């Protein structure tokens, strides 16, 4: 049994030259981030009712009869509620209906009207979940969601600054922003619904990404003290290699578990778990390729600023 425990198979001491590819990684990150930011405005986020206001109803025809989606659509369309979405789910007997409540109209009355129209069109149905959010509340929820993301990032920055050094803080925050932006990009790409749960997912990604970054930075700080004369680039490479086995094991565990969640967790958790999973992958990547290189660009105080802390020399192998 030479292959078990698996940990022995992982090379004890990897010697990847991470920094060598930092430039390519930076270009890739910048391109993806830009695409994500553009994507947030065009085509834009698919806002759930939490942030947009409006109503969502889930309806099911009893005894697994087939639900006539066209009739449902037709019946709600002439109520003058603007854009109405009707979407069939898992089996043919259920659907999700989304619509906006026009300004100045009573929510409850509008919901009752829609339900009445649907019942008239397709016979009796049961409503298993109904959510209505007023425009006032949705605005507040959105503000507090964005505020939560902003404050989270600011506090992380303050914490790292306090625990390490300013440039570590910048590196960590750049990594965080990178992860958040890319997660938004994924939400846009897969047309996932951006809801309160999604904000929770992104905040969790922030927490995890930070966790990952801190582990790398911790080792980096330790090695900077240990090898006072080693060029910064090599210290970074060394630290990344030393923490690589842990990064991989933890990341793989988290991603596997989240995959199980996406697969077995049902409709409601699917978008949430996909976003988390992607965020964790990106978070792992950013703790290697965003946080550390930024420190390299900035340089760190180690008695004297090393020559090779300049970006110009990026990508050149320092030692044969």
């Amino acid at each position, binding site marked *: 049994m030479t292959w078990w425990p698996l940990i022995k198979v992982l090379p004890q001491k990897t010697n990847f030259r991470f920094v060598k590819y930092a430039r390519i990684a930076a270009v890739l990150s910048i391109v993806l981030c830009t695409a994500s930011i553009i994507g947030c405005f065009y085509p834009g986020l698919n806002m759930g009712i939490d942030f947009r206001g409006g109503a969502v109803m889930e309806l099911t025809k009893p005894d697994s009869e087939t639900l006539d989606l066209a009739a449902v659509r037709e019946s709600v369309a002439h109520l003058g509620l603007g854009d109405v979405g009707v979407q069939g789910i898992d089996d043919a007997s259920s659907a999700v209906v989304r619509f906006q409540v026009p300004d100045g109209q009573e929510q409850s009355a509008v919901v009752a009207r829609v339900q009445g129209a649907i019942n008239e069109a397709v016979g009796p149905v049961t409503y*298993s979940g109904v959510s209505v959010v007023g425009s006032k509340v949705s605005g507040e929820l959105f503000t507090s969601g964005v505020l939560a993301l902003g404050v989270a990032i600011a506090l992380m920055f303050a914490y790292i600054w306090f625990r390490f050094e300013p440039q570590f803080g910048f590196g960590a925050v750049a990594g965080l922003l990178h992860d958040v932006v890319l997660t938004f990009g994924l939400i846009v790409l897969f047309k996932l619904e951006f809801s309160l749960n999604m904000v929770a997912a992104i905040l969790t990604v922030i927490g995890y990404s930070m966790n990952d970054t801190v*582990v790398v930075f911790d080792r980096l700080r330790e090695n900077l003290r240990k090898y006072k004369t080693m060029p910064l680039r090599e210290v970074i490479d060394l630290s990344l290699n030393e923490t690589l086995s842990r990064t991989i094991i933890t990341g793989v565990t988290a991603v596997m578990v989240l995959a199980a969640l996406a697969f077995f967790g049902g409709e409601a958790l699917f978008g949430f778990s996909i976003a988390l999973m992607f965020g964790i992958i990106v978070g792992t990547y950013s703790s290697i390729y965003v946080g550390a290189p930024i420190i390299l660009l900035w340089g760190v105080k180690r008695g004297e600023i090393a020559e090779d802390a300049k970006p110009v020399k990026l990508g050149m192998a320092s030692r044969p």
Partner: protein
Amino acid sequence: MIQLSRWKVIVLIIALVFGVLLALPNVLTPAQRASLPGFMPKNALNLGLDLQGGSYLLLEVDVDAMRTKRVDNLIEDVRVSLREAGIATNQIAREPGGAVVTLADPTRSEAAYQELRKLVGAPGANGAAERAASRLSDGRVRLAFTQATLDTMGATAVDQSIEVVRRRIDSLGTREPSITRQGAERIVVQAPGESDPAALERVIGQTAQLTFQMVDTENSIQDALAGRVPPDAQLLIGDDGQTPYLVKKRVLVSGENLTKAEVSADQSGRPAIGFRFDGQGARRFGEATAANIGKPFAIILDGKVISAPTINSAILGGSGIIEGNFTIASASELVNLLNGGALPAPLKVEERRTVTAELGADAVQNGKLSTIIGFIIIVVFMLLAYGFLFGGISVIGLVLNGILIIAAMSLTQATLTLPGIAGLILTFAVAVDANVLIYERIRDEARAGRSVVASLDAGFNKAMGTIIDANLTSLVAATIMFIFGAGPVRGFAWTLSIGIFTSVFSSVLVAQVLLAYWLKTARPKTLPIAESVR
């Protein structure tokens, strides 16, 4: 030195015992739970509405509408009292919180002021009256709510509304509704398992302000419909939504004077509402009916005229019947509303989320299944990666972690929501991270050529700083979610925070104790997770 320290073992055993005790109710049936001896905790996990089904309503008290209405009534009081005193007015102008009267004859301002002083009302609990009368320098007079009244009006309205909503929901027979205040002007109603959210919304949505006002027979309704409404009257519609009524603005008696309402029947046996007034209401109603025999009066509920019967004789007993187009169901619903009291201000439903019990049960099933599968994945992966000894130790830590999380959630009665379950699963994944950090450090040290004991020792010591740092940042994120998050995000944050604490506690302590025990008993020469030292 890594040693089997006695206090760590004791802490671990205490944690395990308490964890099992607190988590136990979750695996028992409700009947078994009830039969537990008194000293044992009986609280199971508190499932959120998305997991057990129920309705969540966020209501906003329309304080502005109420203020406007209160000022309307004040203006009407001023108009009537000055007219009855024979003081002619040119204009009664509305101003924020009151009215300013321009008199036809400015020399009578003293008399007008004395009249208005009668309307100030009795001093309230704080010794100050609700309204204040004053004379202005140019001979105008003024009656307005005092600033103190205006300031507390909103808060009082919200408090009263909460009381009324509570009474009404209780009459529906919902089990354990929670009604809480949120912010300055909002109320959150959470009713688990409510099968008919529409009924819930109906009883909450009705203000149920019942008033008796005279029908205006002096002016023509056609003129009013054409837009010429007399200043002391208002145009209302009947509850059929069509018939217009011209009604005097002055309220003779209102629902506040009701002591009891009940379902009864009119002469032809159709459902009607029987009511009884208190002393003051009976007296006012008696006076008004005695003075207006032969004229119709309107019974108005929330701005709609239910009926407008003609007064045949003075009604002095303080009780009567309201006829209208009632069914037994609508009559009994209205009776419940009237007995629960009127809302001081209209309530607007700002947010409503309803989940049926079936949907909730489905979510719980999915959550359970994915938790178990996630757990198995982690167990298998850790055993594969680190072997039976070190991997096994992580698994034991993970099991303890799971027990402690459920125990802490049951103890604090924190609400477990669907995203909360996701947070729990992720917590397990990150919980092994502490073990991985420790083990990787130990391997580093072993590779550097240290002895088994020294590697374990140094591994633990060096990894601890990293573990604390990494988890503190996650805790910061969770705390922010808790502070800024609404509803579901909050529950998620709480689950995450509890998870962070229990994870660090169980993975570190279990590993320390068990590895020390292994050192003591097996006296190993090499570490199974490190390659043999060459």
